[in-house]
């Protein structure tokens, strides 16, 4: 069902954990109860470090892992623009019906960035749905 790459990110997820003094924290979930929490360490508008915790299926965990890999070191704008399609592509594809599971990561990233912006006194950006 899942390809090697997805299984690798699922079995050995990168960036798992929490950041105590995170600059931005975001959480997102879906009606099935899947849930992701993401922690960003930001310096000079760049994501210096990122950690996550996810409750969900293998696709959700692998997407979380891949998404955090993809935004690490990127600017906030780049991170904001990361699509779940790009995450799925980097994972070399998700089974049909499991594409949705990667949406949670994008939403969590958006919320973390907005959390950071709020703390900086900036206006929050509208989340796409």
């Amino acid at each position: 069902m899942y390809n090697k790459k997805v299984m690798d990110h699922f079995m050995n997820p990168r960036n798992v954990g929490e950041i105590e003094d995170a600059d931005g924290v975001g959480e997102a979930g879906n009606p099935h109860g899947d849930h992701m929490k993401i922690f960003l360490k930001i310096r000079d508008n760049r994501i210096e470090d990122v950690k996550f915790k996810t409750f969900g299926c293998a696709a959700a965990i692998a997407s979380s892992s891949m998404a955090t890999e993809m935004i690490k070191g990127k600017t906030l704008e780049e991170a904001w623009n990361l699509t779940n399609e790009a995450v799925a592509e980097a994972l070399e594809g998700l089974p049909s019906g499991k594409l949705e599971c990667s949406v949670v990561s994008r939403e969590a990233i958006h919320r973390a960035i907005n959390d950071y912006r709020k703390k900086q006194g900036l206006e929050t950006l509208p989340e796409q749905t």
Partner: protein
Amino acid sequence: MAEKRFVYMDHAATTFTKPEVVEAMLPFLKEHFGNPSSLYSIGREGKEAVEAAREQLAKALGANSEEIYFTSGGTESDNWAIKGTAFARRKRGKHIITTPIEHHAVLYPCEYLETQGFDVTYLPVDGYGLVDPAEVEAAIREDTILISVMYANNEIGTIEPISEIGEIAQEHEIPFHTDAVQVIGKIPLDMKKKERNVDMLSLSAHKFYGPKGIGALYLREGIEIDNCMHGGGQERKKRAGTENVAGIVGLGKAIELASAKLEEHDRKMRKMRDRLLAGLLRIPHCRLNGHPEKRLPDNLNLSFEYIEGESLLLMLDEMGVCCSTGSACSSGSLEPSHVLRAIGLPPEITQGTLRLTLGDENTEEDIDYVLEVLPEIVGKLRAISPFYKPENICEK
């Protein structure tokens, strides 16, 4: 971690086919290929083999062989029993009584009947998934034409009070069907004694080490039922279609083998299961679903809080352990199990549910292995779960 080992613990989904069963089938795939309806010799061989299998099954059920009808599996048996009875008796009434924890092969035919003007009562079940016979009696109406309650649940393993329900059905002269797919080869049945009030009973060979795609419906003599498969005159004109001779022979051999070892099998399953359960219950925030005693000897259904079932299943698979998150038919779907919902398990706990079902080839070493890898995997998944609080971590 321990050295990887292949451990199949999903026997409720399907079993391997025993080598003796495959051996018995082969001649009917090869030289004895005749159509059992044919008059000439090689057709008669097929016919005789089908009748011998019918005898084997009848003997195991304490039934008459004229009460056995072969079908393409548990699903067809259930569909036939439910829809066939409903349509045959629709002039007498339109009310059916069943439970919310039936297999979809019973539930969906009932839902279909609802679209056809029938009225279905889904009995309440308690937290163990048990049906109260008094509730059955209370639900009976003037126009009740069928009661269907499964013998044992495929997810949580709970065994229902079939004799008591059968007696009530009998008193009210309402046909009583039970889906015994999970029970055959595990619990001895006797349609003349213990199950004398069961009028229809479904079974499927691939749950007791027979092949897939073959099953049977026990139909007590005199039961009024419409055909489901109309056509040729096979199965005494009740179930048309060229007989799956090899499959039927396989079913016959499988039931014969299972019946000869019922007690031994039961003892072996219980012993392994109880040790596995005791070991797994040491994991914190872990609970057993289904009735603690009134349950199938080979079934464990456990919920591990803070983790999600598919992840658990796939990590176990990576370690060589095959099991299931609910019924096999609904895995891959995002819907939470209707059985766990019916017993009132909260959705967040339902998600972390695992079904381990033991079988013939499992060994004590398999139990050791699962007791080693499962707690580690639970720990690993909890470590990445946003819901799990570190202070709760108490695995070694």
